């Protein structure tokens, strides 16, 4: 759920940020790789650009070399399936980054003009600039088209889609502008060399060349892309099918068999169904782990164990997360104990657990609406609450508050101050 839950990468490799790119996502990717603010990287490219256009070439080189980060975006299977079938709204494009980008672009143009004024290379610089801009736009389009191709829900590839990606005016505008800039650059060079007539000829020739190349190479690229897509899609589909089959077999079928055997036993059936629902839901939609590497995972595991053992539904809500360590282990175990108490003694079929993990503390609230009791009247020989909860928490510097009203239910509040955890405002 949080950034702390990412799996450790074996080899750190720089990738382009393809989720919120302005041009090619190079600056974003590099910023992520080096841990610098993205604005610095952009400014760096800009400064380099004023050094004889070095920044532009660097950017282009990185764009060519760096792989895109999420060629295969993996979400939970249910979410992916729903996305593929168009049952979820599409991803919204963020505009938050555009402001700084525009400012940077203006600054960049200003810097180039300054260089132009000082060095005074005149038209040639502009021609080069236009040409580079055009090629960048075309490349960006091709990059996008390549990405969008995998998103075709029908699995077919039509030629327009290969070139234009998701289509839309933006794609056409990019291609048009790119071509215009490249041809414009040629025209500028021609103008500088000679007459208007020559420039016209050059533009005409360039256009013809582009069209010719398109006609010759287009079908070949199309066929190649289609074959590649089909093959890859088939492989992914096969793997998906195998995964689903394995999961259904391991979980759902087994549970259904158990339910058939225990059809007469209402509580058991309910317990099995609940456990299965929890499992399937987590697998399909959330993709959240129940391993004990984070506090949230450990709490989920404890809640599931109590659900299974005592046949009550545990509604668990966790806000924030942090890696597991021995200190927070106390609060997790105390939560388990409080949950077990609620399940055993409250006489209800549902317990609410709310956990909030912040940089400064871990707070857990376990609440039921059951019988309730008088905390002061608990006999001295009852160890559950006193030993397992109070003393355990006290040993680790935490505190426990039990509020219970007979007839209205009980709430156990666990508070554990923590140090050295991940700051919550990163």
């Amino acid at each position: 759920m949080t950034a702390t839950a990412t799996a450790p990468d074996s080899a750190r490799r720089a990738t382009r940020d393809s989720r919120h790119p302005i041009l090619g996502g190079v600056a974003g990717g590099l910023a992520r790789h080096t841990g610098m603010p993205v604005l610095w990287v952009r400014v760096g490219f800009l400064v380099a650009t004023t050094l004889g256009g070095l920044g532009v070439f660097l950017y282009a080189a990185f764009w060519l070399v760096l792989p895109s980060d999420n060629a295969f975006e993996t979400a939970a299977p249910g979410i992916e399936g729903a996305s593929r079938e168009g049952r979820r709204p599409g991803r919204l494009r963020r505009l938050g980054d555009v402001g700084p980008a525009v400012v940077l672009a203006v600054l960049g143009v200003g810097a180039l003009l300054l260089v132009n004024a000082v060095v005074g290379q005149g038209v040639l610089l502009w021609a080069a600039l236009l040409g580079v801009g055009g090629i960048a736009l075309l490349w960006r389009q091709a990059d996008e088209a390549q990405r969008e191709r995998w998103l075709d829900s029908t699995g077919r590839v039509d030629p327009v889609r290969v070139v234009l990606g998701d289509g839309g005016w933006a794609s056409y505008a990019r291609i048009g502008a790119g071509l215009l800039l490249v041809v414009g650059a040629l025209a500028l060079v021609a103008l500088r060399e000679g007459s208007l007539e020559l420039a016209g000829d050059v533009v005409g020739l360039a256009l013809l060349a582009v069209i010719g190349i398109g006609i010759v190479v287009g079908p070949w690229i199309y066929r190649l892309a289609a074959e590649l897509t089909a093959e890859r899609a088939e492989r992914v589909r096969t793997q998906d099918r195998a995964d689903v089959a394995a999961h259904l077999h391991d979980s759902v079928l087994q549970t259904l068999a158990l339910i058939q055997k225990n059809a007469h036993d209402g509580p058991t059936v309910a317990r099995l169904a609940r456990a299965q629902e929890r499992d399937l839901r987590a697998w399909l939609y959330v993709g959240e782990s129940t391993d004990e590497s984070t506090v949230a995972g450990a709490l989920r595991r404890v809640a599931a164990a109590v659900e299974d053992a005592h046949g009550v539904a545990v509604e668990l809500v966790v806000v924030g997360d942090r890696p597991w360590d021995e200190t927070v282990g106390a609060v997790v175990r105390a939560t388990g104990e409080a949950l077990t108490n609620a399940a055993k003694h409250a006489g209800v079929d549902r317990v609410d657990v709310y956990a909030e993990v912040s940089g400064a503390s871990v707070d857990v609230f376990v609440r039921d609406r059951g019988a309730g009791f008088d905390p002061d009247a608990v006999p001295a020989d009852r160890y559950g609450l006193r030993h397992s909860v109070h003393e355990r928490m006290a040993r680790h510097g935490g505190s426990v508050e039990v509020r219970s009203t007979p007839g209205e239910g009980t709430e156990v509040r666990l508070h554990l101050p923590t140090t050295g955890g991940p700051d919550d405002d990163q």
Partner: protein
Amino acid sequence: MTSDDRSAPITVVLVDDHAMFRSGVRGELAGSDLVEVVGEAGDVDAAARVVDEHRPDVVLLDVHLPGGGGVGVMKRATSADTRYLALSVSDAAEDVIGTIRGGARGYVTKTITGPELVDAIRRVADGDAVFSPRLAGFVLDAFAGSIEVAAVDEDLDRLTEREREVMRLIARGYAYKEVARELFISIKTVETHMSSVLRKLQLSSRHELTRWASDRHLL
């Protein structure tokens, strides 16, 4: 308009692509004379049509729906007085928050019981927001910035300390009247806090907020 002076039952349209589930909900709601189901739909196109035709008080909206999801229905349908209550089987935070940001007034899970559902429909029809513990957790997470929700912008307005407290209590499984008792405020105040949390979610950027305010002649 409150539930007390309501003479006609609350009209409801069910939107879900599973016919079994629709008939189940219809059955649950049939026991209550407070609610009347006037129409059903199974995808975004049909839902937009049915909502425009019947102009119901409340639409029970599935989050995953063929044709663009629950958000698609809220974008397409033109019935201005209709309120939307998301009834979700998806537990993914970005779906749920996305649907709320798309204009839903609340979110409940499909394991909800009949009476609870009727109560949620009534509250939504009265203009209040309905938050289940899970949604309250998502909201706190979204405002803390610890879940990455594609649909959430960076400049979400901050929650006030009071709103945060209310959301925490809801996340702990408190009912509205218990929240009110805990914080020594009235139920109406709790509902006001919930509505402003909802507004802050839906109007994330200052730009949108300005537009919202000027649309209502507040500027």
